């Protein structure tokens, strides 16, 4: 078997203990954060350098074997789902912070470094790395680059792609290429970020470091219902305030959070809004007054302000625990990730309500309200026959709702294996074929994370021959041929 041949060769290139073939150990890599897709990889390698990654990729090319990159395996769309006939290249031993360049607000890190580790390395100097996925304690920066990950604070500061200044990439040919945001030419860096491991493996990342803000104020506002919260969000944005984050939770999500972490949100709230403002002291003070006024005007019945780090953590605790917390109120759940234009939030939430009634399935809503990114948690009991299927249907129909209102099938969790079948609902065949031209340029053999993102692979074929011979215009010399 070819994978065996690769294993043998890999043992020569890497240390023997960095090559895993034992079926029991292989199984620990069989899924990412989306656990209902499981495949045991043919082979796992744990390289420590870019050269080792490149050597393994070249082996794969030589044997025509697919390969999949894996960071921390927290992805929620099955992006790091292995191939039984392929090699899983895990970056967990590439964990060095290569360079901290504080004067230039940059850090160079290896892909296995966790998102939070970057911030921890620079915090004492008053800096941080801005994109903050909730999984930041464990997810890797390489995975963040592949998914173009976001977080609660992306409303003001942007996503991973806005904070990556350079990449070292092992191409699907096994070559090491440097992509620098400042270099002239096509923005291949921009195309690579968010490509979910299908254009190669990143082995070094240069990120921008941001100054920690002077002041941070976090506000918790409780509303009778989700509509009130939604109106407040729109009013805040229309007033020209750009908060660092605006998060919303509905009654069911609050109930779950209380059951799990006793976050002590205001009793009887149909929705809570968390608004975080940060920046220069003078600006934050002014914006805070504005946000407070708007929340009251839109019917908030209780407002709490956190000024200290502890108080802030208390407010965030409920929100941050929300995904895991629904486990307290439901035996099983699906985390959905869809986006709608902010103004469509009320209609889409009403639509989700209607779906709950239609299918007899509960949905807890948690979302990044500022940018319309919904994370509905579709709750079900896997012991009840048929409920899982109904939950799947509800989850799918929520995406239809998002698309009907001009939104997207994913705001941050990616397409992976899970959502490739929805891509044709969002994009035409021509759109998908065009995207795959990029794929063909980087990976004509289709070996880098195949089967992800696109529902049907495009056969790349040879590069069409460059035209030879005389230009037809010259040949005819005639305009009338048109």
């Amino acid at each position, binding site marked *: 078997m070819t994978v065996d041949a690769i294993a043998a060769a890999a043992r020569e290139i890497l240390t023997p203990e960095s090559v895993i073939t034992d079926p029991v150990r292989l199984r620990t890599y069989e899924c990412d954060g989306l656990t209902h897709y499981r495949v045991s990889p043919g082979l796992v390698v744990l390289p420590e350098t870019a050269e080792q990654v490149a050597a393994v990729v070249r082996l794969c090319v030589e044997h025509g074997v697919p390969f999949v990159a894996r960071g921390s395996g927290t992805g929620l769309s099955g992006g790091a789902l292995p191939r039984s006939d392929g090699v899983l290249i895990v970056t967990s031993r590439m964990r060095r912070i290569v360079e901290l360049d504080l004067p230039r607000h940059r850090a160079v890190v290896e892909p296995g470094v966790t998102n939070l580790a970057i911030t921890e390395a620079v915090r004492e100097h*008053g800096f941080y790395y801005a994109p903050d996925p909730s999984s930041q304690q464990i997810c890797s920066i390489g995975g963040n680059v592949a998914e173009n990950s976001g977080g609660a604070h992306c409303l003001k500061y942007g996503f991973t792609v*806005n904070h990556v200044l350079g990449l070292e990439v092992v191409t699907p040919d096994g070559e090491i290429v440097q992509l620098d945001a400042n270099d002239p030419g*096509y923005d291949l860096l921009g195309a690579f970020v968010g490509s979910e491991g299908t254009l190669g493996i990143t082995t070094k990342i240069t990120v921008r470091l941001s*100054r920690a803000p002077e002041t941070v104020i976090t506000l918790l506002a409780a509303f009778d219902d989700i509509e009130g919260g939604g109106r407040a969000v729109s009013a805040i944005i229309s007033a020209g305030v750009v908060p660092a984050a605006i998060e919303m939770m509905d009654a069911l999500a609050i109930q779950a959070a209380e059951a799990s972490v006793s976050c002590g949100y205001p009793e009887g709230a149909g929705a809570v809004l968390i608004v975080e403002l940060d920046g220069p002291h003078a600006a934050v003070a002014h914006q805070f007054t504005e946000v407070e006024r708007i929340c009251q005007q839109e019917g908030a019945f209780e407002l709490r302000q956190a000024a200290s780090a502890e108080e802030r953590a208390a407010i965030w605790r409920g929100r941050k625990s929300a995904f895991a917390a629904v486990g307290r109120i439901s035996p099983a759940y699906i985390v959905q990730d869809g986006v709608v234009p902010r103004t469509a939030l009320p209609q889409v939430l009403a639509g989700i309500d209607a779906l709950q009634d239609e299918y007899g399935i509960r949905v807890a809503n948690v979302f990044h309200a500022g*940018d319309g990114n919904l994370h509905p948690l579709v709750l079900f009991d896997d012991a009840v026959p048929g409920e899982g299927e109904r939950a799947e249907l509800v989850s799918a129909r929520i995406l239809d709702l998002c698309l009907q209102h001009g939104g*997207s099938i994913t705001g941050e969790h990616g397409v992976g294996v899970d959502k490739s079948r929805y891509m044709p609902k*969002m994009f035409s065949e021509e759109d998908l074929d065009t995207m795959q031209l990029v794929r063909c340029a980087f990976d004509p053999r289709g070996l880098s994370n195949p089967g992800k993102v696109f529902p049907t692979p495009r056969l790349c074929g040879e590069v069409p021959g460059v035209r030879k011979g005389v230009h037809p*215009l010259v040949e005819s010399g005639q305009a009338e041929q048109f």
Partner: protein
Amino acid sequence: MLTVPGVTVREATQDDLVGGVRPRWVALPETVEEIAAVMRASAAHDLAVVTVGGGTKLHWGAPPERCDLLIDTCCLGDVLEHAAGDLVVRVQAGTTMETLAETLAREGQELALDVPLEGATVGGTLATATAGPRRLRYGTARDLLIGITAVLADGTIAHSGGRVVKNVAGYDLGKLFTGSYGTLAVIAEATFRLHPLPAERRWITAEFPPDELSFPMRDLLDSQHEPVAIEVDWPDLSGPCTVCVLVEGVAAEERATAVRDLLKPPATVEASPPPWWGRLPDGILIEARGPRLTLAADLPHVRDAAGRFDVTLRGSVAAGAMHVTPASDSDPGQVAAFLTELRSRLSGPVVLLAAPDEVAALVDRWGPTGGLTLMRRVKERFDPDRRLSPGRFVGGL
């Protein structure tokens, strides 16, 4: 005469030259579908195509290897949809940035992308990835673009992104087409995220010796006053340079005072920009890029490279892009020598954006770049017959 059903096509004249190359026809499509029809016709007849918007940067990049047909986007000038509540706009590529700004201002909003050349269109701004002072805070076009519609060489209409700010479905073709100088596709429509117009703006100006510029730059970048732009103007390399900082939004006056104190008197605070603010100098244009702060330390190197050669410097030094302009009557050989000297002294890329042929003939406009092999492969896939602005971009793409 080239005929494309439903599309106005005229004979080209001497006014339609692209880098000295005269096309035979000019097509004036009014919709995406019409662009597609034009591209299908040009595929059928193997015509090389260059797209032009406001014509403000048509002389940037190398002359095309060949050019049979010019697509003029002048009739694609509509703001298609301004969803003010969502802070999103969808616009046709031929719309001028001024028209777009006027439309958005009616709702108190703006596209936070400064336009360095008057008359530039959305399409041209994207194709050349121009940006201005506020790139420091808002990034460049690629950071504000959330969706794109483009027409490929064979007439295929392709979309990517969408009309929501947060979206990771599929590859981001918008980023690939932005800054591609028309060599991959014809940009037809774009969707941008918007920002509310800032309540107030203040410009703080001070002079510094260029050799000491790193200090105020570092203080400014590390400060808590959220400057949205930090620009430098250095009209005379034997004298000091002017640093001008923009703060905008809430409490601008207080933050401006704090910036003034940081820069120390006699720094001044004004409610309007200096006349040179955000304008690209005319004539020969060299762009130097680098990480934050690197360029500030590079100013003395520029002076050393120039010697007695007459140049001026201006740009977003803190954000990592500045423009060096030799006097318009400079000797081509001297300009070429200066460019080579700059490349050897500066650590980042140095690109010759605009120059007369006599200068460009002596140098590589673009200089070295990472990933050129991959870029070639991208070009081969998107435009296998080399019919889209052939030869105009990096490495002859």
